[in-house]
């Protein structure tokens, strides 16, 4: 277990940098987390996905996969990859402060 500091607050993350406790997250931390994965500025579309991830996690206990995001978030899979080039489901989950999506078995 390691910790990270975003927006002046210390949070617990796993070895891949995903939040252990999503309640420790707040919106002010998002830009700082985004910079660690190479995204310098969060646009309105980024925020739309981040908020969608938070809502899905709150409802279902896991973040959606890329395919489900493309079907339900209102942002196409192609655009999701433009917004989060290194893998939308994983990167958006990290910025949104939720655990890595369980996805596939």
């Amino acid at each position: 277990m390691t910790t990270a500091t975003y927006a002046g607050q210390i949070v617990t993350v796993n070895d891949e940098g995903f939040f252990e406790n999503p309640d420790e997250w707040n919106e002010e931390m998002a830009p700082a987390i985004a910079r660690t994965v190479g995204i310098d500025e969060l646009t309105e579309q980024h925020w739309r996905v981040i908020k969608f991830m938070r809502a899905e996690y709150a409802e279902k206990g896991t973040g959606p996969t890329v395919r489900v995001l493309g079907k339900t978030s209102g942002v196409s899979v192609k655009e999701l990859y433009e917004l989060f080039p290194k893998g939308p489901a994983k990167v958006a989950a990290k910025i949104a402060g939720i655990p890595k999506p369980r996805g596939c078995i």
Partner: protein
Amino acid sequence: MADRIVVLGAGTGGTLAANRLRRVLDDDVQIVVVDQDDSHVYQPGLLFVPFGLTHLDEIIRPRQRQLHRGIGYRQTAVDRVDLDTERVWLADGTALEYDVLVVATGSTLVPEETEGLTGPGWMEKVFTFYTPEGAGRLRDALDWFDGGRLVVDVVDMPIKCPVAPLEFCFLADWYLRERGIRDRVELTYVTPLDGAFTKPVASATLAGLLEEKGVELVTEFNAGEVEGSGGRLVSYDGREVGFDLAVVIPLHSGAPYVGRSPGLGDELNFVPTDEHTLQSRARPNVFVIGDAANVPASKAGSVTHFEGEVLVENVRRFLAGEALDATYDGHASCFIETGFHKALLIDFNYDTEPLPGHFPGSIGLPLLKESHMNHLGKLMFQWFYWHSLLPGRDVPGIQSAMPERGKHRERASP
């Protein structure tokens, strides 16, 4: 009034559930099974068709003949389920009323959801062995194939039998060597996962086998487009893999009628289901078996078989007004054909990943290790499928719950 059970789907799950229910429940309980056609495919056999190791007529039998006496059969597509009025509307315009509904309609391939996949080159340079037609056409294409780049690509999870695409690579290596043209073929396995398989210990073993057999492994590749005529796969993040012959495992969804049934399914038409009781989250009187459920287990025949016992017990308890049994543990058990008359066996559940050792006890088939015995086990399994598994009997010595004995836990940590 006597209870009425409607089972949607007469594949592995629907057939074994109906047969087990018929045996357990009183004769006055009505059981009706619905399916849209009369071809029951032994799906594990599809892997062997492209290599000429079996033929379609050896792995397809009539559906209705697998059902015991006293079970009704309706051959028609399902239009939708109305959860509120407890009715299944059929494509022929009639309806079936139910007291308990068992959803067993598996998963459906949706190749049209990947750009270009069913466009130019589909079934000419781009194939899938996940359908009888595709497996048969691929056999002809492999016969003609005399060298070049052969690519096996999994578009995205979940897929039925997650080990089958790896088995295809191992068998292709064997097949090309037998034909004496292996040195003229570049064989590549392309996956959206970050390794050869989903579970760490098995993933390392399987990646080692790919390397041993000279199969290149491309990971974290999410295919956004398949260009058949130009012979290339393009990922969403702009990477490309070229091919002369591509074997693609298309995206999977639940059955289309699930999407037409308000409240029944999720975004991908799989049915949200309690992973231990197999009761749907939609309604207490709807149960789900096999690939149709969204439970976090592999979409595999062994999972469906092991679910059968808990599902049937819970339908019985539900009708009797008793509390449900929450003991399904996610048990899966899969032979992985590796070519040259050998196979691996993996055995796992929700909590335990595939480990080395022996199955089902300390004396038994070797786990996570190639052996001729496992290959014979895989071949013999087809007999058990038709004569033991579908009729709803237990396979001798193999229980629903995953066996702990025989597994080497100390070697589990990487």
